[in-house]
């Protein structure tokens, strides 16, 4: 490891990373609790730093993919710890929940919840991270074609769920549309 190479790397990373920071923070805030998000953000940056040479010209979708894997790892570890804790104390720690939006769109949240996790994740990447199918493909490590087809299907499924919800509640579309 020559210091010159090191300086080059540092300069590249310092140029790249700040732009990744806010999108990654939001990506994680949408999917986990604050403490886990902090940990996973640090992990994600570390992986990006180590794999700096592999980062594509548009590094964000790649970085989302890294964050996704880091988060999955963290959650596997957390589940394991929870089981041990449950065994010892027979009391489960409260489940960390993602912060909801101020004004919750219940029919939409319910419909998303009923989708397969993969489909819901595609829709989140599309609407929340505002990614194109090609970018989604990078995050999920699938082909652009597959991403495009799956996204189309996921949208149709979400529409079907929303329609079902509207029928059940008897309203076309209502904020209080939850059947209770």
């Amino acid at each position, binding site marked *: *490891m020559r210091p010159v190479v*090191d300086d080059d*790397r*540092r300069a590249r*990373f*310092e140029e790249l*990373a*700040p732009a990744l*920071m*806010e999108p990654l*923070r*939001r*990506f994680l*805030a*949408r999917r986990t609790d604050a403490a886990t998000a902090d940990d996973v*953000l*640090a992990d994600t*940056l*570390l992986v990006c*730093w*180590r*794999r700096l*040479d*592999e980062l594509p010209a548009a590094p964000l979708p790649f970085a989302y993919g890294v964050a996704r*894997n880091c988060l999955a*790892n963290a959650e596997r570890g957390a*589940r*394991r*710890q929870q*089981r*041990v804790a449950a*065994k010892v104390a027979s009391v489960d720690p409260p489940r960390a929940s*993602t*912060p*909801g*939006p*101020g004004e*919750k*769109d219940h029919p*939409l*949240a319910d419909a*998303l919840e009923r989708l397969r996790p993969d489909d819901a994740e595609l*829709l*989140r990447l*599309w*609407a*929340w991270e*505002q990614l194109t199918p090609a970018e989604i493909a990078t995050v999920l*490590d699938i082909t652009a074609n597959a991403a495009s087809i799956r996204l189309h299907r996921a*949208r149709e499924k*979400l*529409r079907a769920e*929303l329609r079902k919800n*509207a029928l059940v509640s008897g309203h*076309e*579309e209502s904020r209080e549309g939850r059947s209770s």
Partner: protein
Amino acid sequence: MTADGWNTDDELRARLHAADPASSLPPADPSRVARLLEDTMSSSNDGDLMTRSRETGTHGRNPLTWLVAAAAVLLIAGAGAYGLMNRDTGTPAPGSTTATSTVTELSAPVASSAKCMVPSAEVLGQQSLAFEGTVQEVTDGKVVLNPTNFYAGDVTDLVTVTASTADLQALVGAVDFQEGKNYLVSASDGRVSVCGLSGPWSADLAALYQEAFPG
């Protein structure tokens, strides 16, 4: 239905976007960001992880690649074990149980040079037998375990692991059975599974068993 807000893709996206839980996330403190970046870059100055990854280039692989590779190794090992098992079945014979105590007989794992994978709940969950038990005695070519909890498989009073001297060496190398100590043991096709799937009781391994055999 005109105002349902999901008919076009744009409408659907806008509606989803409005429900974005991160919309109210305040931006990070710049000094914290700077520190985080500095920590990130300095963390591998001393680490050979980075050097290694650049030399071998394997760090870029998706974790899934490793999982698939590991699963393949297991499949091959499993197929080999199954082939051997056809000659000499190690599964407990239903007729061999007595009225006083039931015994599950296991044999040592097939000596193999296949590399171990990281033990995962998925793989563990495929084992036909899994239990927690204390080693009652270790005699020549035979380990007797007193099971306290079965995660999977038929409940018996005792579990024995028999092995030829050579096999026992391999087994002892993999799982160091000692009298009076507590172990988590899994087996498939009548053979003890090694590669981290069986071993002395530890919180980590116990958690893995819990995960593999919920409930």
